[in-house]
Structure formats: structure tokens, C-alpha cells
């Protein structure tokens, strides 16, 4: 029998309706409640679970007591095994982490969680990419790619995955913005890592390009192209994110997923480098023969300034605009819906240098010209 782990973050999304931009932290939650916010995540979780309820005889639901899953499972008519019940009145991010860790230890086949970016971060912190997870969108902030398009689709996809009808899995970004900064009008989004999610383009956010060329094939094409054009004597500063990591893997570079790595040709010379290390390498080798390879991070279209702050204005200026290779799948560019690529390097001059049009490498000898704005 398959085991479905369930986590509901009951307070997710409460800040959104009151214009609080998020619900991270006790103080904000109190403000949200004072403004009359009511929990929405439980209803959204229930909508998803109703899709799973059809499999009641074949699936064991494992969850957390009280508001964090037990109530919703019961409402959907699913018997659930309760691992623990959090004490205290309001649940915290610590409860989410504990729940995810215990569900992983229990050996569940899939963790279905209702929440927003903060919840995804907590689940990621607890389980990394070891357990297949899927988010039911219920939070104020959904920048992460781990969420289904809507609660119903989350339930459907969970059911298909548990039945073995969808088998493929892939990495999806866990992103979050700093709520305090956001309330002050600054966006500071970080890439925290990648959860493993069931892969079904029609049901997961960010994959709105329909059933089409798989990411794996698109990465193969881009990698073959880079393989042919990489100059053996040049420095390659390989950026962060799963697209560039996929290329690192294909080019035989033992690089990092969340870090910046540097190669000479295809030979790795420095791993997970800081801005200072990059500048030292550029100083030693001469910046004119270096190239930066970056991809589009997250649904908003950032190529610099989100999850790759190591590639600072000084690094960019030293390498030069013409030596920046932006790589992305066609689906990712299409999903921008005509919006420009974005840069937020922290330097207005560097941002100005990068704006205009850039050619994004999308396949073997295939590029899309996309506008870049700051």
C-alpha cells in the first residue's frame, strides 16, 4: 500500500488578503488575525484531498494531528495515521519541519503539503531532495515551482503519482523572498534549493508549456551545442540553478546545483566560488577570455540578482556583456508570456549595461532574442 504524507500549514496565505505580503512570523500572524484574516489553507487542502479520496482503499495517509492535516484528512473521508500533534495554539515553521522530517523517516511515497514559499522552504530544509513532494498552492507567495496550478490539480497529480500513472519526477525550485524587505518595497528573492516533484507539465506551475519536449531533451540539445562551442582555453563561470547544473552534468563537470563553479574549457578549476574568488581568477587569467553562463531563475525571469549574487557587478563588468551566455529551455522563455528577462545586480550602471536585447541559447544552434530590463 502506498503512503501519502500530508502537511497543512494552517496559517499559510492569511497575510495575503490583508496586504501583509506573507504570514512568516508570530507578529505578522497576529496582525493578520486582527485584520480579520481567516484560514484558507484547510479548504484548499481539502479540495486536493478529495481527489485522493477515490484511492482510499489503496493509500495510507500519514499526517500530523489537529490543524496540520488530521482535520482535513478526516473531512475528506480518509483514515489517517497521526505521527504527532503539535502543542500550543498557533503552529510554527518548526512544526512543519518536524512533520516533514518524521514523514520522511516514516518512509512515505509522497509528501503533499499545503502552503506557500515559506512552507516549501521548511519542507526542503527537512527532507532536501530525498522524498518526492508536491505543493498545494495556499500561500501568499508562490515563487517556487513545486506547486500545482491549483489545489484540484495537486490532488489529481498526487493520485496519479501514487497509482504509478505518472512516474517521472524532476527538480523544482524552492524560492522565497524576504518578507520584511518586500514590505519595505524591495524584492530580495533567494533560491533555496530544489525539491523532487512528480513531473507533469499540465499540472505543475512553471511547466505551462504543455506536453512537449522534455526538459531533459532540451538540456541535451543545449549541452551538445555548448560542447561544440566551448573554447578549451577560456574560463567559464557557470552559474546556479538546475538548468546550468544539468549542463554541468552533461559536460562532465562535477559542479554544484546552488553554487557558481568555474572551469577552463570543460575542466573544473574551482567549485562553489565566492565573488572574491571569481575576481581573483579573472585577475590571474585575464577577464577578456572569460564567459559567464547563466539561466533564468524562477518564474519571474531573473538572470542576475536572484540566487546568483556571486556574479556581482564587478564580475559582470570584467567579463563583459558580449561574453554572457544565457541558456534556458524554450518552455521557460514561453512561460514568461512576453515579459522581459530581469536583472537586479545592485548597481544601476551594471543593470543599464545588461538591458536591451540578449540572445538566449535554447537548443542546438537555436536562440531566442529576449528583452532584458532592470
Amino acid at each position, binding site marked *: 500500500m502506498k503512503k501519502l504524507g500530508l502537511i497543512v500549514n494552517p496559517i499559510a496565505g492569511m497575510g495575503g488578503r490583508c496586504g501583509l505580503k506573507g504570514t512568516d512570523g508570530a507578529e505578522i500572524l497576529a496582525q493578520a488575525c486582527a485584520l480579520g484574516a481567516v484560514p484558507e489553507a484547510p479548504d484548499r487542502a481539502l479540495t486536493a484531498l478529495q481527489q485522493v479520496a477515490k484511492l482510499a482503499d489503496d493509500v495510507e495517509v500519514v499526517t500530523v494531528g489537529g490543524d496540520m492535516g488530521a482535520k482535513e484528512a478526516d473531512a475528506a473521508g480518509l483514515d489517517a495515521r497521526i505521527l504527532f500533534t503539535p502543542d500550543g495554539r498557533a503552529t510554527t515553521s518548526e512544526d512543519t519541519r518536524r512533520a516533514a522530517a518524521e514523514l520522511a523517516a516514516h518512509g512515505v511515497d509522497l509528501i503533499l503539503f499545503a502552503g506557500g514559499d515559506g512552507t516549501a522552504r521548511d519542507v526542503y530544509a527537512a527532507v532536501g531532495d530525498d522524498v518526492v513532494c508536491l505543493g498545494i498552492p495556499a500561500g501568499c507567495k508562490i515563487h517556487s515551482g513545486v506547486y500545482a*496550478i*491549483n489545489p*484540484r*490539480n495537486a490532488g*489529481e497529480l498526487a493520485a*496519479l503519482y501514487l497509482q504509478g*500513472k*505518472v*512516474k*517521472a519526477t524532476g527538480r523544482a525550485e524552492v524560492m522565497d523572498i524576504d518578507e520584511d524587505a518586500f514590505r519595505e518595497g524591495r524584492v530580495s528573492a533567494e533560491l533555496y534549493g530544489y525539491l523532487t516533484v512528480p*513531473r*507533469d507539465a*499540465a499540472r505543475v506551475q512553471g511547466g*505551462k*508549456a*504543455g*506536453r*512537449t*519536449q*522534455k526538459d531533459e531533451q532540451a538540456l541535451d540539445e543545449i549541452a551538445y551545442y555548448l560542447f561544440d562551442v566551448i573554447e578549451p582555453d577560456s574560463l567559464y563561470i557557470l552559474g546556479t540553478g538546475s538548468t546550468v547544473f544539468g549542463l554541468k552534468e552533461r559536460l562532465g563537470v562535477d559542479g554544484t546545483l546552488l553554487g557558481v563553479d568555474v572551469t577552463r574549457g570543460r575542466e573544473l578549476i574551482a567549485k562553489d566560488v565566492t565573488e572574491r574568488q571569481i575576481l581573483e581568477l579573472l585577475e590571474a587569467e585575464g577577464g577578456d577570455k572569460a564567459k559567464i553562463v547563466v539561466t533564468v531563475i524562477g518564474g519571474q525571469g531573473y538572470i542576475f540578482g536572484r540566487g546568483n549574487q556571486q556574479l556581482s557587478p564587478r564580475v559582470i563588468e570584467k567579463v563583459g556583456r558580449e561574453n554572457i551566455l544565457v541558456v534556458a529551455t*524554450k*518552455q521557460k*522563455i*514561453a*512561460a514568461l*508570456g*512576453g515579459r522581459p528577462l530581469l536583472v537586479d545586480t545592485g548597481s544601476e550602471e551594471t543593470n543599464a549595461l545588461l538591458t*536591451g*536585447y540578449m*540572445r538566449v541559447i*535554447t537548443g542546438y*544552434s*537555436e*536562440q*531566442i*532574442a*529576449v*528583452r532584458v530590463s532592470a
Partner: protein
Amino acid sequence: MGITKVRKNFHQARWDEPMIFELSTPGVRGIIPPAAEAEVAAAAGDVVGKLPESIRRKTPPALPEVDQKRVLAHYLHLSQETLGSNLNADMSQGTCTMKYNPRINEDLAMESRFANVHPWQDEDTLQGILEIYWGMEQIMKAVSGMDRFTLQPGGGAHAVFTAASIIRAYWRDKGELDTRDEVVTSMFSHPCDAASPHTAGFKIITLMPKEDGYPDLEAMKSVVGPRTAAIFFTNPEDTGIYNPLIEEFVKVAHEAGAVCFNDQANGNVLMGIARTRDAGFDLCHYNLHKTFGTPHGGSGPGTGAMGCREEFAKYLPYPTVEKDPATGRFYLDYDRPESIGKIKGFLGSAGVVLRAYCWAMAMGPEGLRETAEISALNNNYFMELVKRIPGVSAPYAEGHRRLEECRWSWQPLTEETGVGTDDILRRVGDFGLQHYWSSHHPWVVPEPMTIEPCETFAKEELEEYAAVLAQIAEEARTDPELVKQSPHKCATHKRAAEEELDDPTKWATTWKAYKRKIGK
């Protein structure tokens, strides 16, 4: 006055028909021909012995052994399980220009004086079909403004590949092929405008659309330069939006020395109204299948008529069909040393050219213009009906009319109900209409639907299709499972797990592959 009826009680045949190979019984024959008469046998001699030893079969081919009556029933069953052309309002295959194929042209193509000619006959005995080829070229020249055409390509993408090959030869002769290695196209041009030049060895740069739906001219200016070999643009694009700035795009390309190709597969709506040559293009193509009234053909046969200015004519595939001005005799010209060569067997799809010629001659110049006008009128009437359906939108070019088609988006309905375009298009089949076509990939328009209600569809048929879409949108709200589990009344299967469709170990396109994959 006809009626508009939504066929709520439609039900298609579902025969649960075995594969023809599964029907095979050893020893059963469809037909037993009589033995040849002694005189004939003696005159023919040992026929098999005349074949080289190397190509003689040692064992008979593994063909199914089925009697005549069962073979006929088998294929009748299969035909009843399709919703083929001319069976209903097949306007739903947008960008395909599905239209009625007049029966008289089918009769002419079946007529023995055409059906029995062989391309290896002496030219003197092929004067009729050569005249039709020559005449069709004159019609295409008039429609486009170009100087020469080839009717050899077997389809649209093949015609675009022919153009790319000609452009490659052109730059090779100028000694610039090494540096002119880039082709610029747009996201809403047909994907073969990227794929065909890519196959011909060019690097492809695609322009994204702006909010007004036009390709981004500033992006074009940023990428066009000394490396640009050519631009390949469709206009109107697959959104049905005509790019009125097309001359600007051509100007930018020409100033950089590049060649300009215009994909006119969507040209149904421009015939007799605008000529691609007048917009400055150097080469272009039209689809004789579909646009010129011939059947879609289900992956062939088709004809992509590819035209060019005189400067490029020497590269056209051989043979060209020529007319001797002195004698009026038609002949095939193989003596074309700079030609890119042969691109299709014999003359191409002569049956398609014949039907297209008959259609164009019957329509006449005024008829071609009327075709264009009514196709635009039909689409805009249909759009007014569809716009009233809550949950569907027409992204880009807000407030502007489209030409012959529109790429719609069901995104608002999907967000509201979880029912997406892949569900809706399957459900259309339950009302006896062909499912519609969503979009090429990647989906730039989310949850897309592309419908081209061209000139042969009646007002009632447009109303029926729109009413069916409205009905399904309503069902998505009241009974989403009904739509998601559709079709219910068609011969086609319910939705398979989609990832299996991408897994070559799970499907087979031939019996031999099927047996190999399931290990029998």
C-alpha cells in the same frame, strides 16, 4: 435557412476492431487470380528469373491473410472511427486551412486520362499535365508577384526547406556562406520557418511577440547584421494577426544584405488582396493542398508551391516546366547547372497540382479575392460568438480584428475550474465535431485553441461550433469530471497517462515494432 444544432445525442461507432494482422488465418486468400493463358505465359517467360538474385525473396512477406469481405469490413470499421475531412465543419484545425474539397476535382483526378499517365512517358505524350503545371505556375506568379515557381515540394515544410537550400546556394556562390550563417524568424511564424533552415544548416534566432502581437522590431534590429543569411516570416502569423510593419522588417533585413522569405501557408486570407513581392520579399511559398481546395491528405500528398524573384530562379530544383514560345510545346528543362537538384520524385504530387489548377481556374481572380474576404469575415463573425463565452480570451492585439484565424486562450477557465484546453478539445468530439488544434510548442499562449473558420463554412456551422464550445465551458463549471474524462461518445480512447506517450518503449507505430516491444 439552415438550423444551428448542437448534436447532444451524437454517438460514434466504436468497433473494438482487431489489428489486421490479428485477423490473419493461414491459407485464407483475398483473391485468387486465374493462371495466365499458355500464350501469355510463354511470351513472358520466367519473370522472377529476370530479377537479380540479390533482390529475390527467399521467404514470402509476412502479410496478413484475410478474405476480401473481411478486409472491406475492417477498413469500413476503421473509417467509421475517424472524424475525417468533409464529414463536418472541420474548421478546427487552425493554421491548416481546412476547406471543402469540391467533388468535381476528385472526379477529374480519378479520370483515366490523368490517372493512367506515367511520368516516364515521352514528354510529347504528357503535354496536358505539363500545360497544367505551367498554367499553375502562371497563377502562382499572379497571386504572389514572384517571377518563377517550383511545384515539386511535397508540402509546406518541404517548400521552406527548398527555399533555405536555395538561400544556402545563393550565399555559397557569393562566397559568404561561412559568415552568413544565421536565420531570423518569429515565435508565431510556423515552426518549420525555424526547423527547415535549421535542417539546412543555419543557426536560428527567434523573435518574441510584443503585446500588440507583432514580432519585436527592436529585437530584430538587435540581431540582424552581417551574419544574417535570411529572415523567414509567416504573415499573418499563427495568431491571425497581420503584421502591418512587415515592410519595415524586410527593409531592416535587406539593409543588412539578408534575403527575405515569406511563409504564405496562412495566405488564404491575402489572395487577390496583398502580394508578398510587393512587401519586398525575395522568396515565398503557398500550400496548394488546402489553400487551393485540394484535400489535406493526412500527411500527404501535398504541394508546397515555392516562388522566387528572378535572381534566385537559377537555383530552383530541376526539372522546371517550360513553354517553347515558337511552337507552344511544353518541355522539362533538366539543363540547369546551378539548380539545387532534385527534391522529389518525378514532378511532385501531380494529382494535387491538377486539383489546385481546376479549383483556381473555376474560382477565377475575383473568386480568389472573395475567398480571402469571406474567410476573414467568417473568422470575425466566429470571434464575436466565442468572445461571449466566459473563460476564453484572445491574447494580444486587444481591440484589433484578426484575419483568418485566432489563437484563443482558455487560461481563465482553467484557473477557475482546473479544466484545460486538452480536456476541452477532446470533449468537442462528443458533439460530432473534430477536436480542435491547440498550438505549436512551446505554448506561448497558455491553454491555447487555434480555429480557422475559412470561407467554405456556413454561418450555421460557425454557430454550431461556438455553441459547442459554450456548452463545454458551462460543463467545466458544473461537472468538470465530465470534461476531464472525455471523450465519452467517440471511438477514440480516453486520455492516456501522458508520460507514456513520450516513452518509445510504450508505443509502436508498426506491427513489427509492437511485436518486438511486447516480446512476442
